[in-house]
C-alpha cells in the first residue's frame, strides 16, 4: 500500500502544478485581443511556396515602416490553405485579415460579397501597370478585388544538354506531336532520365490544370452552352489518350502522385528531359542554389495541337482582404506594399532580379536588369499576354477560365475527374472507363446543384 501512497503524493504535486500552469495560460489567453499592445494585428494566410517565403522574410521592412502594425503569418500547404480560408470566409469566421487566393476564387468570392473591393488603392500603386489578363482575372464586374502577388502561364522546359546530344532544335512554338517524338529520343531510364514529366496528382489545380489546357488545344471544352458536360467527346478522348500514352512510355515512375512540387524536384535534380508546367518554375530552375540543372535548362512556349489559344493557362496568386477583417485599412496598406513596384525593387536588391515575383507588372518586364537576369522573361510575358480566359476553346463556352471553369462547383468536378484521370494514368482504369466515369460524375454533380435537369 505505501507504494501507492508515495506515488499518489508525487502525482498530486504534479497534477496541482499542471492545473496551475493551465490556469495561468487560460488567463493569458483571455486577455489577448486584436489590438493588444496598441498595435494592429494582421493575420495573413499564405501558401508555402518560394515567393511567399521571400515575402515573409522581407516583411520586416514593412513592419519597420509601419510600426503600428504587427504581422502574424499562417503558412499552410496549398490544399489545406484553400479549405481553411474557404471555410472561414464562407461561414464569416473572421479569422484572417489578408488571404492568399487564386484567380479562380477571386471573382467567385467577390460575387458573394466576401471580399473588399480594392478600388481605392493609392495613385502611386499604379494599377494600370498590372498586366491586363492578370488584372481582368482578379476583377469582378470591372472592380478589382485582389492584387496579384505573382502571375503565371504554362510553358515547356527542356534540358539543352540532352537535346543537343540528340540533335534536336526546339522551335519557339512546338507542337504536341514534336514533343512526343522528343520524349522518346531523350528518354533514358537506365540513367535516371525520364523523357517527359507532367502533373499526375489528382486535383483541379494539379493534373486537371495541365489536362484542361491539353483538352483545349485538342479542341475540347468542359461544358456546352447549356452546361451539359462534354467530357465523353472525341476531343477529350484524344487528349487523354495522348497524355496517358506519353506518360506511360516516357514518364517517371509514380507520375500519378506528382504535382507541381514533385515535378519541380524531379526536374531540378536532372531526372526529366522535358516538363510542361507553370512559368514560375523558370526562375526556380535557373537558380543554381535550388537547381542542379540551372545552366542547362531551355525554355519554349507551351506546345500546341490544333487550337493555340487554350494551350497555356493563366493563373495568379493574389492577396485579398475579406469583408470580415477587423482591420481593413491596415490590411490594405499591407497588400498594396506586398504587390507594389517598390516591393519588386526590394526583392531585386536583397535576392537578385531573377527572384522577383514574375507575371504581375509591366514595369518588371520593361526593366533591363530583369531582362538580363531572366532569359525566359519574354516567353513568360508573351504566354501571359496571349492567354485569353474568355475564349479557352475553339467551341463557345458558357464559362471563363483557361484551365478552370469559373463556377464554385468546378473544384469538386475538376477534382473528381482528376481522380479518374490519375487512375487511368496508374492503369487502374482504361482511358475509356475514366472518361465515361468522369462524364457521369460531372453530370450527376451538375444535376445535384441544379444547373441541368
Amino acid at each position, binding site marked *: 500500500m505505501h507504494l*501507492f*501512497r508515495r*506515488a*499518489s503524493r508525487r*502525482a498530486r504535486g504534479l*497534477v496541482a502544478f*499542471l*492545473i496551475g*500552469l*493551465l490556469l495561468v*495560460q*487560460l488567463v493569458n*489567453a483571455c486577455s*489577448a485581443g486584436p489590438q493588444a499592445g496598441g498595435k494592429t494585428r494582421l*493575420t495573413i*494566410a499564405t501558401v*508555402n*511556396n*518560394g515567393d511567399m*517565403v521571400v515575402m*515573409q*522574410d522581407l516583411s520586416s521592412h514593412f513592419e519597420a515602416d509601419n510600426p503600428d502594425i504587427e504581422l*502574424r*503569418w*499562417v*503558412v*499552410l*500547404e*496549398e490544399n*489545406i490553405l484553400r*479549405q*481553411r480560408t474557404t*471555410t*472561414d470566409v464562407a*461561414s*464569416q*469566421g*473572421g*479569422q*484572417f485579415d489578408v488571404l492568399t487566393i487564386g484567380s479562380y476564387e477571386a471573382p467567385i468570392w467577390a460575387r458573394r460579397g466576401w471580399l473588399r473591393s480594392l478600388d481605392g488603392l493609392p495613385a502611386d500603386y499604379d494599377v494600370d501597370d498590372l498586366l491586363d489578363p492578370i488584372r481582368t482575372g482578379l476583377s469582378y464586374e470591372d472592380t478589382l478585388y485582389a492584387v496579384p502577388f505573382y502571375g503565371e502561364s504554362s510553358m515547356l522546359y527542356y534540358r539543352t544538354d540532352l537535346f543537343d546530344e540528340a540533335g534536336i532544335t526546339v522551335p519557339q512554338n512546338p507542337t504536341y506531336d514534336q514533343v512526343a517524338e522528343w520524349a522518346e529520343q531523350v528518354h533514358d531510364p537506365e540513367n*535516371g532520365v525520364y523523357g517527359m514529366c507532367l502533373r499526375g496528382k489528382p486535383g483541379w489545380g494539379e493534373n486537371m490544370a495541365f489536362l484542361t489546357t491539353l483538352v483545349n488545344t485538342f479542341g475540347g471544352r468542359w461544358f456546352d452552352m447549356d452546361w451539359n458536360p462534354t467530357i465523353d467527346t472525341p476531343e477529350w478522348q484524344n487528349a487523354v489518350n495522348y497524355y496517358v500514352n506519353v506518360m506511360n512510355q516516357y514518364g517517371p515512375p509514380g507520375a500519378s502522385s506528382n*504535382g*507541381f*512540387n514533385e515535378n*519541380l*524536384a524531379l526536374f*531540378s*535534380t536532372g531526372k526529366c528531359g522535358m516538363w510542361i508546367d507553370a512559368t514560375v518554375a523558370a526562375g*526556380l530552375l535557373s537558380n543554381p542554389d*535550388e*537547381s*542542379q540543372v540551372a545552366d542547362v535548362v531551355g525554355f519554349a512556349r507551351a506546345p500546341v495541337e490544333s487550337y493555340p489559344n487554350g494551350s497555356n493557362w493563366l493563373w495568379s496568386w493574389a492577396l485579398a482582404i475579406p469583408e470580415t477583417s477587423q482591420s481593413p485599412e491596415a490590411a490594405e496598406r499591407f497588400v498594396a506594399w506586398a504587390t507594389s513596384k517598390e516591393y519588386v525593387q526590394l526583392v531585386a536588391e536583397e535576392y537578385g532580379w531573377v527572384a522577383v515575383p514574375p507575371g504581375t507588372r509591366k514595369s518588371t518586364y520593361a526593366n533591363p536588369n530583369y531582362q538580363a537576369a531572366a532569359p525566359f522573361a519574354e516567353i513568360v510575358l508573351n504566354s501571359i499576354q496571349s492567354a485569353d480566359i474568355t475564349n479557352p476553346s475553339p467551341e463557345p463556352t458558357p464559362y471563363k477560365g483557361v484551365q478552370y471553369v469559373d463556377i464554385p462547383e468546378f473544384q469538386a468536378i475538376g477534382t473528381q475527374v482528376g481522380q479518374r484521370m490519375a487512375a487511368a494514368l496508374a492503369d487502374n482504369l482504361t482511358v475509356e472507363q475514366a472518361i465515361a466515369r468522369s462524364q457521369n460524375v460531372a453530370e450527376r454533380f451538375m444535376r445535384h446543384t441544379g444547373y441541368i435537369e
Partner: protein
Amino acid sequence: MASNTSTRWWIPLLGWLVACLLFFPIFWMFITSFKTEVAAVATPPQLFFQPTLENYVAIQERASYFTFAWNSVVISLGATILALLLAIPAAYAMSFFPTKGTKGTLLWMLSTKMLPAVGVLVPIYILARETGLLDTRIGLIIIYTLINLPIVVWMIYSFFKEVPKEILEADRMDGASTFQELRHVLLPLALPGIASTALLSIILSWNEAFWSLNLTTFDAAPLTAFIASFSSPQGLFWAKLSAASTMAIAPILIFGWVSQRQLVRGLTFGAVK
C-alpha cells in the same frame, strides 16, 4: 523462462532486428534532418556524412517552433486533465453502482468516437465562431476532451472494477462520504491505471491533426499546424521536412520513452488482465 534463453541464441538477434526495423523510419528521418538538401536525395543513400544544423536554423527562422510546441503542451495537458475530471466520477458510479443502463451508456459513449469528424466541421466551426472559441486553446481543449472522453471513461471504468470491493465496504462502514471514498481509497489504488490513461490521452491529443488544423489560426496553433506548413514546399525539401518532423515529434517521443514504464505498469494493473 530464463532457463532456456541461453540455448536460443537467435532470440536476442531477432528481438533487436524487429526493434531496429520498427524504429528505422524514425531513425532515417532523424539523420536526414542533419543532411544538406542535396545529400538527402543522393544516390546511393548516405549513412555517413558531414552533419549540418542548417535545416533547423532555416525552420526556426520561418516559424517560431516554441510557440507551436507550447500550444501542443497546454492543449494536450488541458484536455487530459479536463477529461479525467469528467471521467473519474462517471467511471466511479458506473463501476460501483451499475444500473441496467450502465453498459448501454458505456457502449454508446464508445460509438461516438467512430463518427468521421469532417462531416460536422461546418456546424462545429459556426458554433465555435458564435462562442468565440475559434483559434483559442480552450476551444481545442474542449474538443479534445470530448473526443477522448469515451476512451478515458472506459479505461478508468475497467481500472476501478479491479479494486476489491471489500475495501470500499469497510470504508463505508466507517461512514466515509462518497467524496472521501473516492479521494482516499479509490484514487490511490487506481492511480497507476489513471496515469496510463492520462498518458494515452496526452499522446492522442498531441497527435490529433484535423481539428487542430481547422479550428486554429495563429494563437492556438499546435505542432500539427506547424508541420502542415512544411509538408509540401517547392523544390528540394526532404531535409527540411525531416527537421520539421523531428521537431514536431521529439517532445512526445521523449515523453513516451520516459513514461512507457508507467504506461505498462498501469495497463498491467488493469485493463488488459
